[in-house]
């Protein structure tokens, strides 16, 4: 039997000296903390990157939607163009009447708002438009 084979309980009392137990637990905790901190940093960093990419994606989507908004406004204005409507009307066989008959209905106020009402609505949109 070699000295290394002395049982731990016997060795502890050999020579009457008590050996201090190595401080393992704090070390393990520290290492674990470091590892966790490392992963936390990595995670936060990747999260940030992912968020940045998402933001970029959103920016792109906003730009696309904005472009769509303006394209639709152009389309809307083009569809309203009087010359286009006249041409389409002519294609459908509509003509200006030779003789007009006007019927006046007294006591009826115009239900449709005037230009001022329309502008109040539009002005509100000006502030919201991209």
């Amino acid at each position, binding site marked *: 039997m070699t000295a290394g084979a002395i049982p731990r309980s016997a060795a502890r009392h050999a020579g009457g000296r008590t050996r201090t137990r190595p401080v393992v637990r704090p070390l393990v905790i520290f290492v674990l903390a470091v590892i966790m901190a490392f992963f936390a940093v990595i995670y936060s960093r990747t999260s*940030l*990157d992912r968020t*940045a*990419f998402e*933001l*970029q994606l959103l920016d792109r989507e906003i*730009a696309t939607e*904005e*472009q769509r908004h*303006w*394209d639709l*406004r*152009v389309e*809307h*204005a*083009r569809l*309203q*163009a*009087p*010359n286009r409507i*006249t041409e389409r009307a002519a294609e459908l066989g509509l003509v200006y009447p030779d003789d*007009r008959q*006007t019927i*006046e209905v007294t006591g009826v106020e*115009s239900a449709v708002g005037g*230009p001022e009402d*329309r*502008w109040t609505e*539009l*002005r*509100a949109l*000006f*502030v919201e438009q991209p």
Partner: protein
Amino acid sequence: MSRTSFRFGDLRVVALGLVFVLAWAGIGYRLFQVQGADAAVLAQRGFDQRIRHETIEAKRGTIFDRDGVELALSVYGKALVADPSLVEDPSEAAALLAPIVGADYVELAQRLDADGRFTYVARGLENSVVDRAARAIEEADLIGFSFEDAPLRIYPSGGLAAPVIGLTQVDDGAGIEGIESVMDTELAGRPGKRVVERDQAGRAIPQAEFLLESATPGSDVILTLDREIQYVAERSLQAAINGTGALGGTVVVMDPKSGEILAMASLPGFNGMDRTTLDPSAIRNRAVSDVYEPGSTLKVVAVAAALEEGVVRPETPFETPPEIEVVGETYADHGRHPPVMTVTEIVAQSSNVGTIKIQKQLGDETHYRYLDAFGLGRPASIDFRGEATGRLDHVSEWCGPACGASAAIGYGIGATTLQMAAVYATLANDGEWVEPHVVNEIVAPDGETITTEPRRRQVISAETAQTMRSMLRGVVEEGTGFRADIDEFPVGGKTGTSDKFDVETGEYSETETIAWFIGIAPIEDPSIVAAVVLDTPTGTLADGTELKFGGASTAPVFAEIVEAALHQLGVSPVHQDNE
């Protein structure tokens, strides 16, 4: 004493050690150089390579008509650019791309074949064109082409009101004509600045530091134009030009009470969306740039002044021989009329002789004062760049009675269509001249609105203005302007025909004329004033009347436009039979 013997193996160890030492020393030195001595310079160099200073284009404001319909607006367009040094076959590339982007093949091939590393293939491309061009480039495997963002100015109604709205430059989007030019500062906005960190491929690095100064969008400009009335005005004017073979024409329709211009047509015009066929001479707004002698339409000034000054009354009779001589100059009347006519009849029959006699009683000084007060000889509005002042010489420079006589019947004085429309608007607005204007409001991006009040001044009394309107009604009911009559609305107005002055010969043409009609509707409670001018109309009507006269060519145009305009404005028809 022991002796150390030299061994070859030791030398190798020393040499190896030395190599390591030198290598580490070199690395250390380089490290010191990079991280220490040259750190700042190298850091800056790297920073400069990644960092790009970019301008954020401000979105140009929109131009609306009075009802909020877009007449001009900016969208996010694209520019197709090329690096000629990478283009393998310029001719093939030009042949493929020119028809898609609407470029000239020869010019494009030359640009792609030139030295240099950058050229525009086309700018201001719409998305549909970009898609087709991108597909063509991909399918043909062309290299050296890419797309860049470039704002695109769109005129959704094409050529409608183009001379009023104007144009922007293709490259920097600055306004060069019309409202685009006059309101350029307001429409343009303020560009922003951006410092972006980009990778080698030119992609923005996410989270990289960038400073941002936001671009401020341009303000929106709301015009007084009514798109429907504008369309009718242009359509009717074009029909008249086609029918008379006139060189061109103008129409101004305005609200006399507010001075708002509801329509301003100038033909031949142009289409801002089609720059390939753009004729520079057609870009001008003839209604404010072309000056004509107003002929008989100017007679109202002399008559109104004489009434206002109490020199004559509507029923004051004048002997009206077929012609009159003033200091050697002979002035004759067109057609036959009674030998004695009242002032009202003189206006209705547009008698030159009678008007000259009224002017002689009025006097040159007073006549000039009223011509000036009615706004002749100076720009009528601030809304038009390059508006002509017209021509009104100071009375001290008049040649004497002959000049006064000429001025009375609209010769020797130059006026734009807009100036003359403003004269009649003064009569319609109970004698108050109101500055004609086409800009209604400017709306800033934050919603704040700027409105400019038009200038106003009382020129004649309301009573005189009403009397003049009655006389103008007579012109349509019984006089030279009968073709301007409308069933549903009583209108009044004045015909005018001025012989064209040939600058080269220094004489008036015997065949070419400027035909005018300016009128007010409805005459009792005026809602609109419309002025119609045709430059050199020709031909004859079925009854033999020559179209060179305003009563024959421009009066029907007036009637057509005014009838449609009054319906558009919701003016209730007047039952003339019951009057």
